[in-house]
């Protein structure tokens, strides 16, 4: 298992894809921070929409970064579909005897890689918050720790879902397309009250408490509790892992 994780670490960090994606994420984060903090200064009639004050603005910013679900999805897809689409997976001699371990190694490595990149982006957003946001007060150690572990869990969930799409579609383009379509549809479905009970995005927000900060949660009515958010996000993780394993098992020749 250690060897498989080392192999995945080499594949993730020694190729350009991860670094290019990370740069894009950081630039996008800076752009978002600019919209939230600089745009209101040049627009007179903001209707109170951007009135996010410190220290809640740090949590809101973290929520914005974690909302960039394309990052873990693409990273996970590259980790698995990139190999399924070539002979790399089909000729891996340990494929059948260690299928579960291969999956876990990719799950852990992509999660950690996505987490590190997201933490970097959160730092960028937080620096912008520190200098540009209204209000006073900073997050304490517990507040930052909360952001860190929640970010880890959210990346794990989206990586698991990315692996699930990869395991079934077995090609980078279709897997990324389907995964991104899923995020779009999932976002639309929150307009349907029944789906809100299990919506990943709503329960991720509940887990983070990010939508409560600016009063955005009122748009969607009452947000689920933190406990329910945690359970639903974990459930989506389990679903992602199980679908990934089933896809690899059933679709390997």
């Amino acid at each position, binding site marked *: 298992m250690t*060897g*498989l994780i*080392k*192999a995945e670490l*080499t*594949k993730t960090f*020694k*190729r*350009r*894809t991860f670094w290019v994606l990370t740069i894009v994420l950081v630039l996008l984060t800076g752009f978002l921070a600019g919209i939230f903090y600089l745009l209101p200064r040049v627009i007179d009639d903001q209707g109170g929409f951007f009135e996010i004050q410190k220290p809640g603005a740090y949590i809101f910013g973290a929520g914005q970064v974690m909302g960039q679900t394309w990052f873990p999805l693409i990273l996970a897809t590259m980790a698995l579909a990139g*190999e399924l689409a*070539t*002979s*790399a*997976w*089909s*000729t*891996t*001699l*340990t*494929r*059948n*005897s*260690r299928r579960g371990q291969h999956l876990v190694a990719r799950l852990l490595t992509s999660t950690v890689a996505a987490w590190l990149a997201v933490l970097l982006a959160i730092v960028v957003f937080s620096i912008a918050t520190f200098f540009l946001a209204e209000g006073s007060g900073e997050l304490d150690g517990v507040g930052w720790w909360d952001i860190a572990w929640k970010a880890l869990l959210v990346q794990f969930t989206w990586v698991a879902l990315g692996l699930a799409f990869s395991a079934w579609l077995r090609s980078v383009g279709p897997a990324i397309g389907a995964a991104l379509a899923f995020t779009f549809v999932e976002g639309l479905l929150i307009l349907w009250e029944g789906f809100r009970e299990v919506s990943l995005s709503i329960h991720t927000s509940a887990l983070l408490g990010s939508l409560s900060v600016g009063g955005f949660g009122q748009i969607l009515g009452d947000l689920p509790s933190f406990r329910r958010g945690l359970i639903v996000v974990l459930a989506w993780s389990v679903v992602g892992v199980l679908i990934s394993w089933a896809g690899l098992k059933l679709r390997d*020749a």
Partner: protein
Amino acid sequence: MDAIVAEGLRKRYRKTVALDGLSFTFPAGRVSGFLGPNGAGKTTTFRSLLGLTKPDAGSMEVLGISVRDRLPEIVKRLGAIVEEPGLVKGLSGRDNLVVAANTLGRGRERVDDLLEFSGLGSEGGRRIDGYSKGMRQRLALAASLLGDPELLILDEPLDGLDPAGQAQIKDSLRQLAGQGKTVIVSSHNLSDIEAMADHVVVINKGRLLAAGDLASLLGSFRSGYTVEVDEPQRAAAVLTEVGIPAVVEGDLLAVSTDDGAAVARALAMAEIFPREIARRSGRLEELFLSLTEGDR
């Protein structure tokens, strides 16, 4: 001792029968050729032996171990290239070997030695995206040797390589055979197999056609000569009359016998004087074609 024993392998992909009760053995410590036309079932057989696909029926033992029951033990003791080498683009040659070593649970100690062995020592730091096909094939061979395996299974290792690349791989395989390793090679290039292997298994349509020592198989096969004469029709009639099978092929005469002197004598007695009598080249090719002729 046999390195591989397969009994009654059957595999069907929807309507296509890939393996049809195939049984064979490959001896240990020798270089063996695995031959068959395209679609004969060679790759499916290799994939089955390596646990990459499950046959519908039959049993396989590799190095005396059941593939079905104890695959992880087998994987540690063999190296393989099946179909396209499974290399990771975007990584250097050296990093590819490191990834392969880690994936197979083997140490990285041999990485530099194997880069040298495969002639890629100075290219190890380059991304493989810039490698030629021959360089990738040599890197894949190096990866298959990471665990110092007892058995090497190589599916078309010379396919698509230029003559220089083929010569390098053949040299490497001869070195490995000299170290007492069991090497099994499939190839379309029969003269390469003839030059490297001393045992062959020939299959077609998932069935065994022939197996055994190359020398004895070729010995049992009537090879022959190509004769260049002015009157091929009359020469063919003369030879057929004295019991030597001969047919006209264009301007030449194809004669099926190992006794070249008898051919020369019979033609001389009929006052036919050949410009050239040459042993037909590619004897394994003839054997292969004659074996697969009825199935094509």
